[in-house]
């Protein structure tokens, strides 16, 4: 089975052919008329024509819709859920990165930035996460801001700033509307950090039971389950869960983590 490999090859080709970002932006002004530009030339609070010196005020623009030659939202979704998050991040960086600064305008960048944020988080790019959260907040879409806040919570938990994480999490009015398994996961982590492994396990159990095909949260939830068993002094159960990680996520960070947990639990990482 070499499907992944072939996709990688295709992506590598795409990356090498496209030397720099390419996009088209359909600009719609307040009176409903629209025009397409290939280079968004914004200086100060004015948008300049690609040629000549004509310009219009940004306040006159009602919408800017970007279309990228090398990336689309379905592709983002596909790459994210097939686990090729490194490629996704570099692609978004290449295509969306150059215009991300315009997220404060009424654009369609928000969805792309959310994919970028997710990719950066799971790729361990904390600095990138911080920057993207800023760009998403500038966009001022409450649903995107909520997503960004939850990933910020994740980052804070990873950094051991549990109290801050708790505070930010509580500031999101309906975390379940972003993602039920994510909200459960965060609550599980916070409960574990707060010294209540049984409560943590109840949150984790709901992810395992009802979101078992969630490609983003099932694996971390499984790791968390193993960690809770370790904390509860049940290394055999932790080992069983580690085995699952090694079987179900071959060649990924999750199977590596599984092997590590197995070693911690039994002193043997297995084959």
């Amino acid at each position: 089975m070499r499907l992944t490999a072939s996709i990688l090859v295709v992506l590598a080709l795409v990356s090498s052919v496209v030397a720099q970002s390419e996009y088209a932006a359909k600009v719609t002004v307040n009176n409903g008329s629209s025009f397409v530009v290939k280079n968004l030339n914004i200086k100060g609070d004015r948008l300049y024509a690609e040629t000549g010196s004509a310009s219009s005020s940004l306040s006159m623009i009602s919408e800017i819709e970007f279309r990228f030659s090398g990336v689309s939202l379905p592709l983002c979704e596909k790459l994210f859920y097939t686990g090729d998050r490194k490629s996704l991040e570099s692609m978004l960086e290449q295509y969306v990165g150059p215009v991300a600064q315009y997220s404060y305008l009424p654009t369609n960048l928000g969805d792309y930035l959310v994919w970028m944020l997710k990719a950066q988080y799971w790729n361990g790019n904390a600095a990138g996460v911080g920057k993207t959260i800023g760009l998403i907040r500038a966009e001022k879409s409450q649903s995107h801001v909520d997503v960004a806040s939850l990933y910020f919570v994740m980052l804070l938990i990873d950094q051991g700033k549990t109290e801050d994480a708790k505070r930010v999490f509580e500031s999101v009015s309906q975390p379940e509307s972003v993602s039920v398994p994510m909200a459960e996961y965060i609550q599980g982590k916070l409960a574990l950090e707060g010294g209540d492994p049984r409560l943590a396990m109840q949150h984790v159990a709901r992810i395992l039971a009802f979101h078992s095909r969630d490609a983003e949260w099932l694996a971390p939830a499984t790791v968390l389950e193993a960690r809770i068993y370790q904390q509860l002094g049940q290394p055999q159960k932790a080992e069983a869960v580690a085995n699952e990680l090694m079987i179900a996520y071959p060649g990924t960070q999750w199977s590596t983590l599984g092997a590590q947990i197995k070693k911690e639990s039994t002193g043997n990482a297995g084959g």
Partner: protein
Amino acid sequence: MWNAYRCQKWVAKGLLPAAILMLAGQSLGAGVTKSQLSRLDPATESTSVLLETSKELLKNDQIDEALPFLEEVLLRLEGDAEKKARQTLAFTLYQLAYCQMKLGEYVSAARNFARFADEFPEDAQQEAARVMAAQCLTMVQQWPMVEEQSALVLKNPRLPEELKVSATQLMAEACYQQEKWKEATRPLVSLFRIAKTDTVRAGAAVMLVTCYVRLDDFSNLFQFLPHCDAAARHDVGLNVALLEAGDSHYNKGEFQKALLLYRLVLTKKELIAHYEERILTLKGQMKPFVAGGTMTLSEFKEKQLKQQQLFDRLKRHYEVITNFQDYDMDVMLRTAQCYNDLERNWPAHAIYRRIYDENPDSELADQACFAAFAVMLDEREWALATAEGYDYVQNRRDGEFLDDVTLNLMQVHMQQEQFEPAYEIATKALELSPDHKYIDQITYLMGYIRFMQFSYADALVSFREILKRWPESRYYESAEYWQSMSLLFLGEFAQATTAFQAYLSNPKYEERFYAEDATYRLGVAQYGAEQYEASEGTLRGFVDTYPESRLLSEAYAMLGDLRGAEGDMEVALDFYSFARDKAQNMSQVNYPTFQSADVLMRLKRYGDVISMLADYLGKWDDQADFANAANWQGKAYKARDEYVHSLRAYFDLVDQYGNDAVLGGVDLILNEVISDYQSEEWSAYREEIRDRLDARLQGASASNQRTLELRYQTVFATILEGDERQPFVDAVVRSKNVPLSGANTLVLIAREGVKREDWAMVHEASERFTSNFPISNNMLYIMLANLDALIKEGSYDEALDLSETILLKFGYSKSVGWARKRRGDVYRLQKKYELALEAYNEVLAVREWRGDLTPEALYCSGVCKMELGETEEAFAYFQRIYVLYEDYVEWVAPAYAKSIECLEILGGHEADIVNTYKEMLANEKVAATPEGIEAAKKYAELVPAEKAL
């Protein structure tokens, strides 16, 4: 599942039209009638006529009739090497194979297609012919040959795309059908990538998943699945394959693999939603033809045909899914079972709970509700398990598992030593299910609970019921044993003796589970029934029969007691010695040791007592009951009139163990010293005691043993008075000393804390005492101090609770009365006078509490009555004090004052008031009290001086 698709999948759409076109190009134009055919004899006609006729027949799809002509041509041209003849042979062979295929003669067709491909390798149709051969072979399921033909085709790296797809399909299926899972994966992966239609892709995905599952290749399986597009992923066949594979692994006990597979199965709901969306989208795309548009009519028709075919296929799948049995809950249940089998009970619980919550009326709900309870039992999560269990009992009265749940609930409670709730659920169980599946077990456990609660009579009823109603029960033997035990503990020694004897001789049991224990208990019962000789006989028999018994030491000790009672002291000492030798725990060591000490004291062998206990202390060190040992050593020294030695023995042990705050025995030894100091018998040694105590205190201070130091200071604070005492009290009574203090020190801190109104310190000392010395004799005193603190700081509810606890814990002992009186005070301070009066009445009613408390309770009752405006009753209470309890001046004086107050309120009692003043002041002790002094002043104002004089 695969078979349902196979036929439609393997029709090579690209090839059949090509063959038809080829024939059409060579046709002669008109059809051949039956009469024309009847005039033609293939055997005699010229080859050219045969050929022309064949073409004409083929053109008109008269395949059946074409066969003899083609076969005859083939016959005539075979072996002819001439080029044109070879070309005609090739054409004929191919057409013959094609006709045979059309007529369903697949074996012949396959043979001829293969022959064509073998004999004419340069022919443009060579690879197509092999593919056709392979296709024919699939119809007769000649899979090895299908594989062979497909492999030959696939050797060509420049194979046209359509042929490549078909050949790959054939190769994949051939391997798959031969269960060559490994060989099948390569063409399947390739097919999944190059297939042009969803159906073929989905079919490939199904087979690939099956191959990976059969190969146990979860690695590739999990790498492959995310790459399945929505159409393949939602294919019914693929999901059924996952489900079946899950079942297969589950049945083999491979729960982890089964779990991973079950989790991948999409629910029926998800599949239906997917197909509905696709059908709707397709419907939206099927629009009528618009002339002058971008598409010609023929292009439109071609597109319309494709759309219609897709629509029909989707519709068929949709119908298959909707008609499919509802498996969603089944999959959830199996997933939960896997988690449970893997001992990952939390997700199992979550799933079971949801199945039940969302489908309370389904067939699986009952099982799910029970399972939610059972997995929490497995997880030893008693609180959740109990909640689930009671939920089942509450909501599933007709449930299949009601009896299992009630029995388990009972056992959970028992495991947590919650005997009363266990008994309650057992009672409920029998009420809900009079023919309970486990009625004998429930009854047995009910008896056992009552036994553990010391309700031996109730226990006896349960055990007897089992013996009477269920002679075949597996609990019969246990019931018989515990029946005997209940009688023993009821003090019915004669009956117990009979019961144990009956049990031990009951022929019902092949192996007597309680034989050993029952034999020993029989000896005890006989002893209780004063059948000493029989008891000794039983116990001697016991020690002979069960030399390894855990009760051996106790049997020897009892034999010692029996011999001792007969005055046979030396033999008794021997038995106690055996008892010590065979002891398996400290209790079995201690009893014969101190019994020996007693016997030796009676024999006046004081030296032996001292040396035996020295050995005992040396051997058992901190496990020893050093306080008891010190007591016996002290007694022995005192009996030898060597008091100073006894003091040394006491202090040595105190020094040895006294710095450990939780060892309560140290305080017992020091209590002995205090008792000696305060007794007349040893008054001559008071100075000696103080000197030695002081020396030990200095030693403790010098060695920085703070707990020990506090202990010695506490002794000084107890035996000294006034100014001598105060420095020791000041040194001890500090909040920071609480964590370092032993029992006596904590009592001192609490009591002095009350005087100093340092409530926090009192609570702290009390809390520490309660957790470290739960069975101490001083418990009541520290609780009383705490109660006092609670009342004085205004924590009335807690004070009331504590008062109840004290009553429950200590019954009607003298000091408890004080706690109950304080309970009245709490209510009084809360202005709940009726409740206060009830509390005071309780104090007045209990015989054990009469004495000091009575005048106080009467006084307080009077105060309450006054507050309630019942002045006459109040007056009566006060009057009873100075009439009946005149020795209690501290209550008589205020009682006089209050009764005068009552008379004033009532009015018209001036003479009575004067007389009461007179009576009060006539008592010198009362007159000297603050109330007396105040009364004198008022009396002087009331009565002229001369008259008073």
